[in-house]
């Protein structure tokens, strides 16, 4: 990552929820850090600098993704740090937290250091590592948390799998207290979700597919919340997907427990009907009246809609959105999960779980803004300040355009219309149910430490 780069972003609509700032003006980044913001044209920077014309565009702090699978080391055919971080840049993300279900997993300082070094050499955006909770993610023995904390992890997770053993989870929460880092659980009761391929409900039954009931997530979330209460540890619930889980988080917060939660863009907008190939009319993403009783078409059994936790119902997406707005959910995280074409070009039962989401996150979320269900400011807050607060010391200079913050910026056009073309993704993962969908809202440029790491080809070149 280049340090010491200076950049003047001009004539943008600066929107910084961390300060409650909304200003039509210029933003100056000096030597990689935010120097000042000012009404357009009123202040001239000193020294050498590049410029970026943001006329008609929103200038926001760069997004932070708490939950992202870069697949390296071990699964480089699905993604690498280089391709994954370039995808992040195209999505407006200037910091990503890399989940540790790599091969080898990030359960030792050596593997964390490998990741950090690779990210330093090849990453296009900032990469923060998440360490495993248990050795090898096997769920049996805790990792050396102090060692991993010293190596720089921002949290612990066996994501991909839950911590099935309640005793181990209790120990992880207890032991983790001194480090001030969250224990992040992927809540999914193994026995209740055994061979499930999608949300258990009408659609699964219609398709003859085994379901993962909402209760599989909720029983473990409830368990973990009680353990958080018991231990005083910090529990973070990864990618919550049900109205019931949201309710549990809400009550945990009311009890004053240290419980935080994230939600993915797809769990806020898409439903299990997408597996049937139903998408709603003209980009309305199922907001319009669906027709679940219509005969199945050849678009049914869309493996790109196979994800864990699964896409659920409109009742769940509405509840999660409400929770997001109220702040019960702290942050939006993509759970970017790239897979090869081979892993997805097969029957639904055989297909891998996961959506490649970094490059469509903003566009998909903007559907909520355009529908009037979410303000742009709140959306940006949950992508910037929300995640930054969960990163503790590491997050203090992120997610903000205050003077002294890292010069990480996303330049956005909330109204630009574009069609999702996965073959044009920077990510190796082309697996998105949004292929061919028309989105309204696009990332036009991304800046990390003052350096432009991504610019849409239609935007003006920095001069």
């Amino acid at each position, binding site marked *: 990552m280049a340090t010491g780069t200076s950049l003047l972003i001009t004539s943008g609509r600066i929107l910084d929820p961390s300060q409650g700032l909304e200003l039509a003006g210029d933003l100056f980044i000096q030597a990689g850090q935010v120097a000042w913001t000012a009404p357009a044209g009123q202040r001239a920077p000193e020294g050498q600098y590049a410029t970026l014309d943001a006329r008609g565009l929103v200038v926001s702090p760069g997004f932070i993704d708490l939950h992202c699978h870069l697949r390296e080391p071990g699964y480089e055919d699905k993604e690498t740090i280089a391709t994954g971080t370039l995808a992040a840049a195209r999505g407006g993300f200037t910091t990503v937290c890399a989940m540790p279900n790599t091969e080898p997993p990030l359960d030792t300082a050596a593997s964390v250091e490998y990741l950090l070094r690779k990210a330093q050499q090849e990453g296009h955006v900032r990469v923060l590592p998440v360490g495993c909770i248990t050795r090898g993610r096997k769920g049996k023995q805790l990792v050396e948390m102090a060692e991993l904390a010293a190596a720089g992890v921002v949290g612990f997770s066996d994501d991909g799998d839950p911590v099935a053993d309640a005793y181990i989870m209790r120990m992880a929460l207890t032991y983790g207290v001194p480090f001030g880092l969250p224990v992040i659980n992927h809540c999914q009761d193994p026995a209740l979700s055994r061979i499930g391929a999608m949300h258990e*409900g009408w659609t699964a039954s219609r398709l003859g597919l085994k379901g993962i009931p909402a209760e599989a997530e909720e029983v473990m979330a409830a368990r973990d919340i009680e353990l958080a209460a018991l231990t005083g540890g910090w529990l973070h619930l990864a990618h919550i997907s049900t109205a019931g889980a949201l309710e549990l988080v809400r009550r945990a917060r009311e009890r004053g427990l240290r419980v935080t939660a994230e939600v993915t863009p797809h769990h806020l907008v898409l439903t299990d009907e997408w597996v049937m190939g139903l998408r709603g009319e003209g980009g309305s993403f199922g907001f319009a009246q669906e027709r679940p009783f219509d005969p*199945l078409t050849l*678009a*049914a*059994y869309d493996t790109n809609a196979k994800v864990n936790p699964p896409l659920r119902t409109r009742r769940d997406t509405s509840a999660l959105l409400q929770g997001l707005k109220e702040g019960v959910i702290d942050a939006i995280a993509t759970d970017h999960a790239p897979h090869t074409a081979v892993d997805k070009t097969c029957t639904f039962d055989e297909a891998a779980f996961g959506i490649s989401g970094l490059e469509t996150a903003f566009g998909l979320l903007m559907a909520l803004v355009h529908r009037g269900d979410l303000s742009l400011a709140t959306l940006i807050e949950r992508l910037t300040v929300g995640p930054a607060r969960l990163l503790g010391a590491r997050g203090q200079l992120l997610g903000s355009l205050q003077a002294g913050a890292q010069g990480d910026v996303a330049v956005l056009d909330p109204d630009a219309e574009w069609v999702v073309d996965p073959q044009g993704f920077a990510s190796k993962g082309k697996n998105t149910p949004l292929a061919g969908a028309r989105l309204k809202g696009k990332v036009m440029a991304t800046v990390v430490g003052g350096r432009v790491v991504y610019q849409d080809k239609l935007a003006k070149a920095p001069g």
Partner: protein
Amino acid sequence: MRTVRARETRIPPDQAQAGWRKRHVLDLDDFTREEIALVLSTAQAMKGILRRAVKKAPTLRGKTVITLFYEPSTRTRASFETAGKILSADVINLSAGGSSIEKGESLLDTALTLQAMAADALVIRHPHSGAPYFVARHMTSTSVINAGDGTHAHPTQALLDLFTVQEHLGTLEGRRVLIVGDIAHSRVARSDLWGLTRVGAQVVLCGPPTLMPWDLLKGREGTPGHPFASVEVELDLDRAVEGADVVIVLRLQKERQEAGLLPSLREYARLWQVNEARLARERPSALLMHPGPMNEGVEISPGVAHSAQSAIEQQVTNGVAVRMALLYLLCAPREAV
């Protein structure tokens, strides 16, 4: 030496195929009443060929039908093979064992290979729901017939069931049809549900509560447009049999007990076995059907299976006729035979 020439099938092509728009047969949910009627009337004509001394018609001469079965099957595959051969098609049977599927060749690659060999119809049975949809999505010239996918659908079985009921009772409209057994895991039951409700039959479902597809039936009373709005669920078999014109008995897989869904086959048989005592008490004249193969002594008693009201063997014959009809509708050349 006299040559015996098979009499040609006189199904007027215009009439038969004019009503037929499908490229694939994947499930009955997309069949209109007219399309179902067309299949059944075509099957009726095909049955005429089955009764001849020389069971041969040149209708599908030069057409290639390939069966691709990833699950074991006796009757369905033999039924398709017979159907194709009677119509003079070249029929090739592939199964998972003994083919490059064992070497890991993917389902899609296999299907594309067979399409490249100019297969006109691909009959697929696969343990994963949706597999035929996945294959059909990639076919440009080959028709796909679903011979059973996971727990999702078995359209040809449902069509032969409809044909059998119609043959015995004259009409399906308003008939009370009881389906007993493991409904949730039965692709036969699911396709029967679509077919029977489409033609106006009254469907009653009976079986253990752990084996009932509650999600599929959810909202059927309250939701407008629900395809199964009229379907009844009655868990008590003695009550369910009341007034039934037809009883379709489903095979109970012994694995359900191992999966924790049932305490024992013994208890299942006590509560849900279709036997003489139950049928005699309630509806001695009900038509009895079973898709086969049967677990005699579990879901059905041997006496009932071989009784006078059993149409099980006719089902098998009708299966060939229905499959002949489908192969004809999908593959026969448009000009007069």
